[in-house]
């Protein structure tokens, strides 16, 4: 049987990669992808752990997926709005608010 730890290792690395993407990438869509990876990492943990056959973890993961969808919808709408005005979604170049 697979040790539970290995699920956690994979999720940890996935989480770290997601955070690294968020921190180093300047493109808004890339950042959003990084966030999705981080959410998935958390979900792997929630799904893998199962305390006494309870389904709480899986339910949590379901809700996370739903929230992720909502967040992505709003997020992409906003990113598109940014693109319409700035003609770029590079976060370094989106700096109208200066002072």
């Amino acid at each position, binding site marked *: 049987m697979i040790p539970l730890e290995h699920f956690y290792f994979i999720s940890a690395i996935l989480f770290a990669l997601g955070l690294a993407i968020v921190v180093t990438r300047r493109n808004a869509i890339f*950042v959003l992808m990084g*966030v999705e990876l*981080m*959410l998935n990492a958390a979900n792997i943990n929630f799904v893998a*752990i199962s305390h006494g056959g309870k389904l*709480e973890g899986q339910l949590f993961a379901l809700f996370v997926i739903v929230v992720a969808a909502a967040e992505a919808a709003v*997020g992409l709408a906003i990113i598109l709005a940014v693109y319409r005005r700035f003609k770029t979604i590079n976060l370094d170049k989106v700096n109208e608010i200066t002072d």
Partner: protein
Amino acid sequence: MASLADKLSDILNSAVNFGPELLLVSGILLLIVVDLMVKSSRWLSVVSILLATLVLVTDAMQWKLLENPVALFSEFLMLDSPAAAWKVVLDIGVLLVMIMAGRSVPLKSRGESYPLIFTLLLGGHLLVMASNLLIVYLSIELISIPSYVLAAFHFNKRGVESAVKYLLFGAVASALMLYGMSWIYTFTGNLNFIRPEFIDALLNADIIPLTIATVLMLSGLLFKIAAVPFHIWAPDAYTSSPTAVVALFSTVPKLAGFSILAKWFLVINLFGLSSIDWVSILSVIAMITLLIGNFSALRQSSVKRMLAYSSIAHTGFMMVAIVSVSEQASRNLFFYATVYTLMNIAVFTLVQLLEHKENITKAEEYKGMIRKYPFTGVLIVVLMISLAGLPPTGGFTAKLLVFTSLWEAYDYTQNPVLLYLFLFGLLNTVISLFFYLKVPFFMIFRERSDPQKDGEQKNVVWENYFVMILVLVILFLFFKPDSLMDVINNISFAF
């Protein structure tokens, strides 16, 4: 395992105590319908003020009738007196914002703003009652998603820029928090964090992963209250959102965040048994928050941006109450939160008024406005004094109270960090005066560049009366703080 019938009856029973929220949900749906059917924004405005009042009244009644804590919906929520009281404060905040929104063109021009604001309030309601990690996560998102949209409501370059930054930052913060939650769930096997088993499990958990998980978890909460280092979204969002939305951001999500942080802090502190000194860590964060808030505010020329940093500094002051960890400290936090809500919304109302009438946003542009708006000027002076925390205003009493509990905590634990926080916090009051006086300074000390048609015009604006009432309450809370404190004393913060 409880039978299906038991579960269903639990849902029905819970629904009885869920009145304000059900009202809120139906209100949100109603507002959406009204927005679709009626073209005039006046109706929306009226309906929302009515709805906010109604929710406030039901929440107040719920608080009054509440005797013992009630667990709702299979213990997802815990309706206890602090939660009921926090809900009332949030309702007051939203009601005031709704009144203030009467002047807000961006909000009135898009009717969707009203349901969004009430959704945010619903999120706040759930967050203050939350006793389950899942609900904490969901309600934080329920607050955040409308916030992202509302931040963009000017629909100009700056608006969407602040929205995208707010969104990405918020999404990352909640992802961090979620990962922390997944570990905490791993330790405890339980999502209900007020159960004793939960605390026991945390006590048995290994310290290193527990610390990592807690730090991750805290980051999400610190983001909501705009504490350093998760504050950087706030100045941008405050500068470029509609002023009424800023007033909302600076109060409702922040206070809801504080209520849950206060609860959660007890958990991670494991009631003093944690081997990690969270009190010192949070104290240091509070100090840095104060420092960054105040010093950055000094450099701002835009009034809204300055007030954004001021609200970050206030976060630092409220964290003082959190690290004092006592029942009295929670009461004092509540007092502070109430005063803070009143004065912040009041000051933003006046900022919005001048923005609307004179089209001014920078502190320099306020010059000479006292001649044209004498009464408004006086009100701004009083409010700034209150924000700075000087007598004779409620801001002073609030600060006195939180520092009192901090002193008591220091006296009890002899933790030197608390003493430094104490001195540091008070010194910051002096620094803060520099920028709080900036607007009155320009209004009163500088003459207008175009003194054309001077001679106090009769500017009869309803904001003056609205804010005057708030200011009177703020002054009253200095002279008779017992009036509010007696009410707060009925709240049992015991866990």
